[in-house]
């Protein structure tokens, strides 16, 4: 049985359709990411699964329970963990007190001391929450999400506002939970987060799921076009350089092709024949970010005008 099964889920707020007929399943032990821009419907979807919001239409089963059924809600909450988007920690209690309090709400909680160690707050165990840094508070928040030893955990944008090392730490924690067999549902608008953590990704935009798959195959990423990028030093005559789907921004040249071997052959031949270097030549598949931007409605033209900083600075000597 799937940990989470959603069929035809819809939710409106007045005239605004927040979630529009979406369906997906998450299997036990899987890490599933809902990826989408702000306002796409990620949080609404997760809040319906958590039982915090009522749906307008569709079927939802979470660990076999209907989250809208109040009669079974405590049984369901006993088995799931939640990390909300906003930080929500009691400011005047210490780290250990907050965890001990919430551990008491569950029948089979984790050991509070082990949990403090797991999230790296051992040195702060006796400190009041208000005296923790933002990143430390967020780690406590994560600890509160898993204090009940959940089978299923919801992480709503778990690393928004983290510095890179705190982010890495949170990822490690999610990976270790997944390694223990916990089912994880996370929402994020970071492509690299979905790519690093998720077994499967659904991209959501304007309330609809526009693509689903593994991070590697999403949107035909493993099959489709490649990008060839390079620069030509100023002052060289490159008027003869013509390829389909070629774009130039200053010195930067980008060619999108589905026959990258032939294209490269022609390109390097031209380079050698004319003695013009292809500075920083790279061939890359569409990144998850490219796919995401395509799927969520940004134009490719817009992208070509805003080459990523790494493309501009990477150079082969």
């Amino acid at each position: 049985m799937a940990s989470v099964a959603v069929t035809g889920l819809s939710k409106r707020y007045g005239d605004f359709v927040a979630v529009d007929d979406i369906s997906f399943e998450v299997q036990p032990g899987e890490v599933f990411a809902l990826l989408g821009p702000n306002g796409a419907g990620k949080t609404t979807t997760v809040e319906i699964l958590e039982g915090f919001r009522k749906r307008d239409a569709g079927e939802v089963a979470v660990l076999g329970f209907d989250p809208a059924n109040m009669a079974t809600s405590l049984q369901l909450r006993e088995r799931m963990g939640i990390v909300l988007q906003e930080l929500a920690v009691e400011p005047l209690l210490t780290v250990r007190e907050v965890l001990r309090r919430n551990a008491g709400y569950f029948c089979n909680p984790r050991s509070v001391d082990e949990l403090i160690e797991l999230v790296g707050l051992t040195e702060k165990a006796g400190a009041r929450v208000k005296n923790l840094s933002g990143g430390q508070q967020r780690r406590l928040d994560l600890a509160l999400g898993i204090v009940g030893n959940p089978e299923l955990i919801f992480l709503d944008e778990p690393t928004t506002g983290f510095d890179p090392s705190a982010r890495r730490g949170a990822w490690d924690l999610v990976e270790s939970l997944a390694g223990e067999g916990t089912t994880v549902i996370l929402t994020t608008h970071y492509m690299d987060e979905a790519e690093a953590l998720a077994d499967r990704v659904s991209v959501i935009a304007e309330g609809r799921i526009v693509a689903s798959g593994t991070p590697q195959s999403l949107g035909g990423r493993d099959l489709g076009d490649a990008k060839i990028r390079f620069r030509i030093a100023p002052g060289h005559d490159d008027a003869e350089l013509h390829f389909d789907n070629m774009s130039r921004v200053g010195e930067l040249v980008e060619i999108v092709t589905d026959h990258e071997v032939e294209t490269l052959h022609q390109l390097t031949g031209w380079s050698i024949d004319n003695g013009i270097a292809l500075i920083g030549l790279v061939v890359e598949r569409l990144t998850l970010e490219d796919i995401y931007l395509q799927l969520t409605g940004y134009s490719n033209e817009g992208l070509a005008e805003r080459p990523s900083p790494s493309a501009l600075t990477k150079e082969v000597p």
Partner: protein
Amino acid sequence: MASVAVPTRGGARQLRLVVHQIYFEQLSFWRNPIGAGFTVVFSVLFLVLLGATGGQSTVSYLGGIKAIQYYVAGFAAYGVMSACFNMLAINIVIRREMGLLKRMRLSPLPRWILMTGIFANALIVSAVQVVLLLVVGRYGYGAQMPSNWLALVVALFTGVVCFTALGVAASTFIPNQDSAGPVISIVFFVLLFLSGLWYPLKPGSTLARVSDWFPVRHLITATFAPFDLRPGVSAWSWNDIAVMAIWGVVGAFVALRRFRWAPMKG
């Protein structure tokens, strides 16, 4: 040590969980210098100051009894109101806007236990203040103790229930934590002033007639009744208790209808 609830079944576990929750509510309350200060320290300080300045004077239209009798009762009532209405309403707004209520709502803690914890916290803080005020009144200013303790307990407990309901109801009208303190405090102190906390109102005066519509004055007079030791005066003020009960029911109705777990912002 605190009770950390262990996995037992049914009633025993629920009872442990109630105690567990009350312990952490109390811990949070006494850790908050502003919250603890404004309620407990204020009521005792008021009594000390007023007792020292006018406590031994007599109140002619109360048959010449000493004012300290009135002040002990008045500030016991004040203590209950500040714990159950003022402090509780502000506390709920802050927790709601911080997302703490939402998180609680999504945990397996039954809602009735969460609410019991909040109520018990207000009750304990009220009781601590009443005891302190009685001790200060008795040994500091020679106040005479009530003729009928049960009447005092019933009056104050009705006040606790009534003002807790009103406090929860009031919290639903405050949109954010910045305005919670000022708005609640202004409403509270205006009602206190109108209701004759700092000086006994003459029965039948305009102020008395206005404040008769609100529950504040009724808690003060119901609490004062057992301290009014003149012969032939009843320690029970059923009329005041009934008005508080009505306000409590209205407050509970509004609270249940309007209560929100999620922050109002965003």
